[in-house]
């Protein structure tokens, strides 16, 4: 299932962080991901989103993700 795959990839890339993945439309290919991680400290939003894209490079390339919304924030 795509949700679990994306969540697994993000958990792996951002260990110990708060990660959530939501299927926005129920269609299984429009996702909202939210990541709160200490890795974002001191990074611009572009750099933060790049890290998320890097983590999800495979599902982005193979068409699993048709549309992706990203929300990042530093760890609380």
């Amino acid at each position, binding site marked *: 299932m795509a949700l679990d795959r994306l969540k697994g990839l993000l958990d792996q890339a951002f260990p110990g962080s708060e990660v959530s993945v939501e299927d926005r439309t129920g269609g299984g290919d429009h996702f909202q991901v939210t990541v709160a991680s200490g890795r974002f400290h001191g990074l611009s*939003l*572009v750099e933060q*989103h*790049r890290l998320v*894209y890097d983590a999800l*490079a495979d599902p*982005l*390339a193979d068409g699993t993700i048709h*549309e*992706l*919304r*990203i*929300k990042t924030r530093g760890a609380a």
Partner: protein
Amino acid sequence: MSDLKGQIKTIIESEDVALFMKGTPQFVMCGNSQRALEALRRAGAPVTAVDILPDPRIRQELSALSGWPTIPQVFVRGELVGGADIVEELAQNGELEQTLTERLGPEYRDAGAERVVELTAA
């Protein structure tokens, strides 16, 4: 460098605000492109829009240049500002207007109407 790549590079570097999107401002073909366009409009940005849909190579060359995998992509004076989520967030917290003022000057709203540039494949 392919002709297409050169055209994209020129737009990124020479336009005040370049929006690479699916469709055109008059006929937007994607929700995220719509979100980015609306955020830019709210900030009064002088948008130059480029439709990436006519040729799949536009998107390939663009992402190769920017290192950004998704559409839309917004550049201000050559620098990637982000995709729809970032531009929307920056518009909401006022940073987009601040960035535009810093890079384009306080009169940036007067820079002119929305434009559409068409890329011509070689």
